[in-house]
């Protein structure tokens, strides 16, 4: 893997890892080699596998942030709607890992307490805690946290293709659509809140 790719993929983390979008790619991958993606499935390098697993862990951060903010602001439909999509994303990320032989059993994806908002890595815990803390201050800030997550998702998708197998790369374009829809919903919500 090139240095550039490694850095780009690692950067997903801070961007709150929105990898949601990339994770969703696995839905298409789960259909099998070339299943709709027209791709040739290849072996990933050990480094690429590490990155995929890391991304899978990160994906939980975005999902859990939306779940928690959705509970804080139950009347804000955007969070409720996007939660469903994010859950699909993380399950898809799991499929993607398993497709490449990566064991995901160490990550508990339960939606029950206390697993939501609980992370093995200190860094991911801190990101989650910071996002929730920022979102707790007001609904407007919570919506802006959502915007940040989606913006970074979209950017990451555009970067993530580098050096990855074509069966992964080919589905990225579809994923952007989901994130663009989420972004539009959050931006509409922000606009509405600012107009009051």
């Amino acid at each position, binding site marked *: 893997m090139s240095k550039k790719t*490694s*850095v780009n993929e*690692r*950067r997903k*983390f*801070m961007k*709150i890892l929105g990898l949601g979008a990339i994770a969703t790619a696995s839905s298409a991958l789960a259909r099998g080699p070339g299943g709709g993606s027209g791709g040739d499935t290849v072996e990933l390098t*050990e480094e690429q*596998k*590490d*990155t995929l*697993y*890391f991304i899978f*862990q990160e994906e939980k951060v975005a999902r859990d942030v939306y779940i928690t903010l959705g509970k804080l602001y139950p009347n804000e439909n955007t969070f409720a709607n996007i939660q469903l999509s994010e859950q699909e994303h993380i399950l898809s990320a799991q499929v993607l890992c398993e497709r490449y032989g*990566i*064991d995901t*059993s*160490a990550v508990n994806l339960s939606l029950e307490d206390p697993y939501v908002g*609980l992370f*093995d*890595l*200190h*860094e*991911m*815990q*801190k*990101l989650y805690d*910071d996002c929730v*803390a*920022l979102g707790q201050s007001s609904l407007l800030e919570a919506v*802006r*946290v959502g915007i*940040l997550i989606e913006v970074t998702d979209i950017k990451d998708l555009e970067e993530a293709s580098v050096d990855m197998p074509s069966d992964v790369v080919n589905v990225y374009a579809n994923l952007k659509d989901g994130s663009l829809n989420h972004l539009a919903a959050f931006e509409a919500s922000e606009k509405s809140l600012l107009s009051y």
Partner: protein
Amino acid sequence: MPVITDNIKKTLSESLYLYYSTLKNGDLAVLSTIMTQESYHITLESLGFKRAFKDLEFKELLKNIDSSKEDLHRAEKIISCDLRADSIERNINVADFESNGNDRIILHYNEDGNPKKMYFSSSSRKWKINHKAGRKTS
């Protein structure tokens, strides 16, 4: 599966405690020596996230830490000050060591009572914190 010797356990435990003490006192120069470079940058991004959310200038700095040494140093300075100001003390207790292939170990520990993991990888007989070494390889 390689044996995790008492020496290795001591080394990893010391790194863990050093990691948390550097987060408390903002000594990023030391922190950078006990982590892989990639993990160190991940940690900086995590530490700077909250500030970056509100401070667009800092956000730009943080974006460039991989490509610009000058921006890296500027970001480190700011993050270090923030860490010293917060001076967060954590209660850390080592719980267990788990082999993960030939050159990786997962250190299980508790942070303020919450279970956490620190991933380590070895290169040239030197163990470093490596956030991306959590994938099971054995």
